[in-house]
């Protein structure tokens, strides 16, 4: 319950911080941090234009996408407070529920029959497939490290003993930040601000969505960012008491958003053909974490 509320709060201003960071770094003042949320609210009040080619899939996909992320958010714990949904192996369901939403978004892009959207859908399907192994190895490493098999148990028993384990925490945050960037199709994989349809991934998939549905999709993106931020914060919160953990949570989320803004300001987008190689790096980093865990546990034979 705690983490759900915290994530919902953060999702209101997360992308605002990213935009603000980017503005400041490019020498502008920039809009207030709640501006993106206000834009979404405006979209929610608008009517919509729907393609004649589409079917019911196109109508339900944004809703299902949003529900899948909400369902995933429900599983995120906050330190010692478990998520609303918590059971052994919940992170498996976490990954698969998110995949469900993605599946529907991909087919809804194909539903419009547009080549642009098909292109985006194709890339989204491939990159999210490539990112999945990194997530599972990461969670597998920490499951092995703590001997637990659920988000809450892993994070509440996680304590850093040796120097290597600090390194593991750092690497894990790196992997999660990168996973969040890929899942949300941000730089260095994809540039949401680009104006050429041929080079976009996520943005080009939703070209035909408008009005309420577009608002839902954009809010879901914010929610997803906040969700990954919450996951990262869990690596550091651990057993800390509530008074410290909540400010720490916000600090980490703001830090995460700022980091995203900085990355987007100083990095150029990769060539599309190089993206898979980049995504593979994540898998190797998480393998590194896995072997680190084996090292800490002394399981090398």
């Amino acid at each position, binding site marked *: 319950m705690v983490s759900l509320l915290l994530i919902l709060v953060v999702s209101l201003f997360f992308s605002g911080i990213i935009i603000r960071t980017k503005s400041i770094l490019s020498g502008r003042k920039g809009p207030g941090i709640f501006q993106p949320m206000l834009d979404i609210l405006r979209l929610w009040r*608008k*009517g919509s234009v729907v393609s004649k080619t589409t079917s019911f899939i196109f109508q339900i996909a944004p809703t299902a996408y949003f529900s899948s992320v909400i369902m995933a958010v429900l599983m995120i714990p906050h330190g010692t407070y478990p998520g609303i949904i918590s059971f052994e192996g919940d992170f498996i369901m976490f990954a698969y529920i998110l*995949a469900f939403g993605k*599946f529907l978004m991909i087919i809804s892009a194909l539903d419009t029959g547009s080549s642009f*959207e098909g292109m985006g859908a194709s890339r989204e399907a491939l990159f999210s*497939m490539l990112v999945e192994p990194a997530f599972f190895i990461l969670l597998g490493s920490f499951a092995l490290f703590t001997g637990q098999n659920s988000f809450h148990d892993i994070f509440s028993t996680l304590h850093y003993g040796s120097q290597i384990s600090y390194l593991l925490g750092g690497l894990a945050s790196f992997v999660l930040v990168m996973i969040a960037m890929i899942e949300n199709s941000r730089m260095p994989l994809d540039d949401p601000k680009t104006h050429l349809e041929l080079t976009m991934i996520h943005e080009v998939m939703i070209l035909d969505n408008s009005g309420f549905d577009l608002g839902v999709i954009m809010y879901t993106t914010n929610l997803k960012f906040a969700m990954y931020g919450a996951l990262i914060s869990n690596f550091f919160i651990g057993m800390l008491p509530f008074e410290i953990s909540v400010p720490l949570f916000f600090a980490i989320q703001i830090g995460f958003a700022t980091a995203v803004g900085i990355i987007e300001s100083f990095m150029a987008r990769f060539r599309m053909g190089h993206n898979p190689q980049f995504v593979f790096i994540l898998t190797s980093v998480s393998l590194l974490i896995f072997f680190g865990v084996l090292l800490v546990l002394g399981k090398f034979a």
Partner: protein
Amino acid sequence: MAKIFVEILNLLAIAALVTIPFLKTKGRGIMALFVISLQIIIVSALSFAVFTNGAAEYFYAGSWVTGAIPVRIDYLSAWFMLIISFTFLSGVWYGVQYMKKYMDQPDNLALHLAAFILLYTSLIDICIVQNGLVVLVVWEIMALSSFVLVIFEHYKNTTLKAGINFLIQSHVCILFLTLAFMWVKVRTGSFDFNAITLFSTSQSPIAGIALFIFFFTSFAIKSGFVPFHTWLPLAHPAAPAHISGIMSGVIIKIGIYGMLRVLMLIKSDMITIGYFILMVSVVTGLYGVMLAIVQHNLKKLLAYHSIENIGIIGIGIGLGCIGIGNSNQFLVFAGFGGALLHTLNHSLFKSLLFFSAGNVYQARHTMNIESLGGLIKKMPHSGYLFLIGSLAICGLPPFNGFISEFFLYIGLFHGLATGNFVAILVLLFTMLGLVIIGGLALICFTKAFGIVFLGSPRIQIPDEQDTELPQRIWPMYVIVLLIMVIGLFPLLLSGYLIRIVSLYIPSLDIGLQLQFIETLGKLTIVGWYSLGFILLIVSVYYLRHLVTRARVLTLQPTWGCAYAPANPKMQYTASSFIRTYRKLAEPLLSIKREKREAQGLYPKYISQHTHAQDKIEIWFINRPLHFIRKILNSFVFLQNGNIQAYILYGFVFVGFAILLPSVIEKILVIIKFLNQL
């Protein structure tokens, strides 16, 4: 009681076969429907009786050739009998409607019906008879009847070719099976399955593993493990839709049954066997799905997906074996339980997918994905049923595929926590394989569903209207019902799974049994959450409906970047959807490309064809065949068409066969004589 049931089952089949010549085509159809339904009722009653009363066993005296013929129906048999029966039930009701298109071929239909009844009866008999020789005979009946079913459209060249390929490969499978049973018979003097246990405990461990390899090869051909899968992608597109569904749903699963049965009997180095199966399975799963993505024929795509799912089932079996070897009872449970559950699940969603594909085929007369599109508006039932099948096969909640994959993941994570270094590495890479398989399946089915059913039709063909009649749709909805029940209430199956798995762990203690039930309880929680997820989607959608009800909704053509005369040919194609993937996977695949480039100032016609070839088929089947043919061609002079020469060959052979023993005797005498010098 079991004896009476089994006998009635077989007598019904014989009676049905006898009456076929005396009926008209329509009567034959009704009779087959009636007989198979009756048989299914009997088999289901028998299976449930076994699950409530425990295993049934009785003997036939047999003859001096076979020895006593034991009929044993244990939990494992009952489980597979139920899976087979349900798939046949939906298959026969769907198939009768599907075959209505072919009413003008009465003889062909009669043969098809007879083979169908034979196939069902022989599959059930394989599950219950435990005498090697009898099983071989029944196995042969099964292979032949499924061959007849596959080549229904034998007037098409490709169908016949695929059928003959299937026939040959099923006989290679029988060859290995025969060798294995003969080896056991020679060493122990019995065809009884229990002799396998005797064999593996009395002979050296190497012999035990070698015997397992014989069995494994045979069953791997039947169930399509890489590299023995090459018959599958050919036979599935050739067969009628209900046969493809049944073949993918249960015929290939009989190999899985065989494997599970042999693993139950053989007492050998289970860890080595487990690692071996895991390795083969991960390769199978990855290879199957990697090739599935690049297919252009919808049924071929589904066939490669069967290979992938066999890989997933194999992962479960491998985990179970490692569990037995390490006496880690939880791993045994998660592994075998996951494998058994996935066998059931795959039979459900794969037959659903094949039946939907069959509807598409009968409406559009093509299976080429590139020329389909927009079908969800013309065939909403088939479309949404295909979608449910796709979501289930990708292992997404709230459908049943998720439950069995969850089982395997739980097993893998549990194994990680308890294993030694080698085991951890193996399990890690298995997990990696499973995750990648899942991700690739997502690409594959977004492609298949998105291109076939969504968008607008790519080629205008006048379609037939009657493919969505209620009588051919309802069996598919029954399958969906079962998919949902398993997805939401997996606890219903726990009792069955625990009983089957306890056959592998004779010393199962109560505490662990409770732990298993607890794990299944967790799966029930997963089921409830899945239900919650559905409710969440529905309520959010209702909220959306409430909000957008008052808003303006305008219908417009799809946004085309200001290009006005957009046409369906400009839609994204299946090939372009997977292009990035294809580029990545190109080194591992073999893709034939034919390109006609634009030439001259006014180029008229440009084209590009890509055709995915199966690298393993080329290296493992085509190249050796080519080589053998080259050698054998030097002996072609023997086949001179002269009947006298053929009779001479016969005499030479008979004479040689008769003289051989005495010649050997003489040689031995000479050797003896020389030795005495």
